[in-house]
């Protein structure tokens, strides 16, 4: 039975996961015992008391208060144990240690953006130190999302009009997957991210180097990298396929028809505007679903993306 419930759960990689798993296990075992009892009773009664003749006479047993109380009180006690256990575990999940390292999370359709205290920004990659409580303060730029890391047994909805938070403390270095679990439209199931758990030194190294090293890169290469890193590619293909947004292939200097009939040329200013204020001009045939990247991408990064798009003819 132990192995069954272990099989059912992903690896436990946070300090709070153990308690959640123990409760999961307790409920499973108790339920399976009771279910077996009920199933045996069904099968046994169905066989033992099967109708033998049309004239069978059955006893008159209309009720039994002792029995009624027994099978009300025992389950009541059991569920109260589960309630108390679940609630105390939940309070642990809600109460972040005061020394937690804070990271701001912004959910956008359809990517996760992480802002660190040092000013670093990463997209769809959450970098955290091991053995140290991390608190995520989260908001959404558009619709509801939900931040879920199965390995940590934590989940919290991300809302557009307020901050929500969750905390965890990773117990081992490595990678864990992040899912969006509140339905948010076309690419909901592609709104994934990865948690990279580093040792403290590696984490500090990452903070220092991330986002700076590649300023020296060739702009086209840099642009290509950014398109993947910032999840542009979730909606904009580079091979002509139409996803939730128009393809980048052949975009440069093409004539674009907008939903209001306006025709514009896709030059630098158009692309720049589309990145920073995507809903000002909407290409015909597409929905206004793109989040703004103002504050996420700086001017040099936008230049690089434009350089990359120029190459996709």
């Amino acid at each position, binding site marked *: 039975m132990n192995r069954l419930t272990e099989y059912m759960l992903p690896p436990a990689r946070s300090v709070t996961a153990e308690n959640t798993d123990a409760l999961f296990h307790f409920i499973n075992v108790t339920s399976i015992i009771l279910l077996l009892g009920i199933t045996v009773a069904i099968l046994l009664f169905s066989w033992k008391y099967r109708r033998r003749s049309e004239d069978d006479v059955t006893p008159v047993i209309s009720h039994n208060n002792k029995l009624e109380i027994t099978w009300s009180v025992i389950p009541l006690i059991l569920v109260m144990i589960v309630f108390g256990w679940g609630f105390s575990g939940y309070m642990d999940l809600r109460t972040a240690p005061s020394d937690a390292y804070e990271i701001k999370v912004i959910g956008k359709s359809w990517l996760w953006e992480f802002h660190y205290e040092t000013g670093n920004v990463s997209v769809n990659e959450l970098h955290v130190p091991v053995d140290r409580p991390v608190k995520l303060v989260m908001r959404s730029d558009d619709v509801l999302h939900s931040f879920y890391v199965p390995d940590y047994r934590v989940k919290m909805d991300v809302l557009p009009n307020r901050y929500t938070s969750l905390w965890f403390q990773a117990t081992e270095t490595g990678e864990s*997957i992040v899912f969006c679990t509140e339905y948010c*439209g076309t690419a909901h*199931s592609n709104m994934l991210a990865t948690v990279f758990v580093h040792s403290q030194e590696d984490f500090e190294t990452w903070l220092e180097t991330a986002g700076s090293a590649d300023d020296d890169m060739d702009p086209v290469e840099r642009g290509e990298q950014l398109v993947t890193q910032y999840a542009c590619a979730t909606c904009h293909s580079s091979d002509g396929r139409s996803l939730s947004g128009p393809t980048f292939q052949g975009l440069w200097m093409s004539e674009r028809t907008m939903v209001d009939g306006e025709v514009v040329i896709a030059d630098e200013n158009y692309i720049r505007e589309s990145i920073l204020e995507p809903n000002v001009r909407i290409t015909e045939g597409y929905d206004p679903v793109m989040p703004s990247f103002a504050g996420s991408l700086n001017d040099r990064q936008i230049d690089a993306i434009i350089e990359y798009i120029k190459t996709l003819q």
Partner: protein
Amino acid sequence: MATTEASNLKKLQVRRFKPEENPEKHYLNQETGIWAWMTTVDHKKIGLMYLASIAFFFFIGGVLALLLRTELLTPAQTFIDADVYNQVFTLHGAIMIFFFLVPSVPAALGNFILPLQLGAKDVAFPRLNLASFYIYVAGALFTLYAIFTGGVDTGWTFYTPYSATTGGNVMMMTFGIFILGFSSILTGVNFITTIHKLRAPGLTWNKLPLNMWGLYATSIIQILATPVLAITLLLLTMERALGIGIFDPNMGGDPVLYQHFFWFYSHPAVYIMIVPGFGIISEVISTFSRKIIFGYWAIALSSLAIAFIGFLVWGHHMFTAGQSSLANMVFSFLTFLVGIPTGIKIFNWLATMYKGSIDMKTPMLYAMIFLFLFTIGGFTGIMLGALAVDIHLHDTYYVVAHFHYVMMGGMVMAFLAGLHYWWPKMFGKMYSEYWAKITAAILFVGFNMTFLPQFVMGSQGMPRRYFNYIDQFQGFHQFSTYGSYVIGVAFVMMFIYLMHSLLRGERAKANPWGSRALEWQVSSPAPLHNFDHTPVIINGPYDYHKPMSEFQLGIAGSHHNGHGHHHDEAASVAETKQEKA
């Protein structure tokens, strides 16, 4: 002529009215023709029209489900794209819930059986009943229109702000469901009035069939909860059409407020779907165990308790939505409380079978399948009620599996038990027991194949409403899909043997199951006006220790048809005189 005391403590002259076998005239061959059906105020015909409608919607919803499962065979795109997938799961949910589950037992089976079980000739407001049906049809047409004009991809929950911003005909769809709600409310009003006012002489509250208690509790929820859905959908429409900020934060609204509104209806709504199922199970288990129900009041009152507490647990859908920890604690606590009356029912049903004379006919087989699957649904509900664990399982396939175990394993199995149980009374025909049992077994296997793996992948973290998924879940998804095909095969078989029953089926006896319940004391199919006499009730509906003759009493002299042979039976009731009602 015998004498008995009825509830008003008047002495009534009663005699036995034996149901006529193979009646020449019944409700199906009187008042025939399309126009007569469309304008009928007969609750039985209205019930059948509902039955045809929900069967149609169940078929549509089922086909959509198979499309979803087929798409999920591979981790990436299999044959439809993400937008279509999102629309299909939205429609599957909305159709199955609003057009099949909610009206299935109350409107279809309930309409047919309620007056018969009360000894009434019809519901209290027969015209209102017909109006309810047409309101249902109107709501359905609006929704079908929304489906064909396309693009509703919000999920059946219509969560804001997504539903306020997405393209697609959300307004038409919600308007359809808005209209549908009135059908539900009016049916509830009709049933409550009928149960209060039209019970046969002697049918006191402590002799009311448990199916009636189930429908009574359901009607209360329908009347109290459905208006909230109507208000919510109206607010949603106002927001979309008029730009009034209620739920959309861009206009100063609050999306969590929408969730409160929505679940304030939709949680009680799952009890609208399941509580009448409890009623059916009580009837079927008692009938096929040929034994008095164990814990009549425990079962009756637990239905009312579920109806009441069910109003106070909506917040358990929002444990991760950002509501306060205190609210989460209260909702978690109340959620566990609602589990207790449900458990009590299961134990009482088992105790009813103890020392019974159990005939495992198809309805009973479905009742046993119900007991097993619904118990799993209940236990996994306890799992989801536990706060710490729910944080992990929320919005994963675990929830999907739990919901299907409760709704399909519970409600649909109860519905099928009821359908097979009352089929002879509806159509006067028997179906093939052999094929019915084989189908039930296939359905049971297919159901577990489909939904058991979903518990595992949900626990492992597979989120719901995912078009793409990571490779590690493919095995579970494939197994689940194959299971859904088995379910599909079972329903095709059911359709075939039921059609065969209608066309070539053996004629049903008035009371093929030997039940003591009142609806079985009239001929099959039921007479046009149910009872040609005024039935008189002196025993509980499950008093199998009393002779059948005591369950076929009616006021003497009120029998207009004057079949001479009935008078011969009068003597056999003589011993039942002076019963205290």
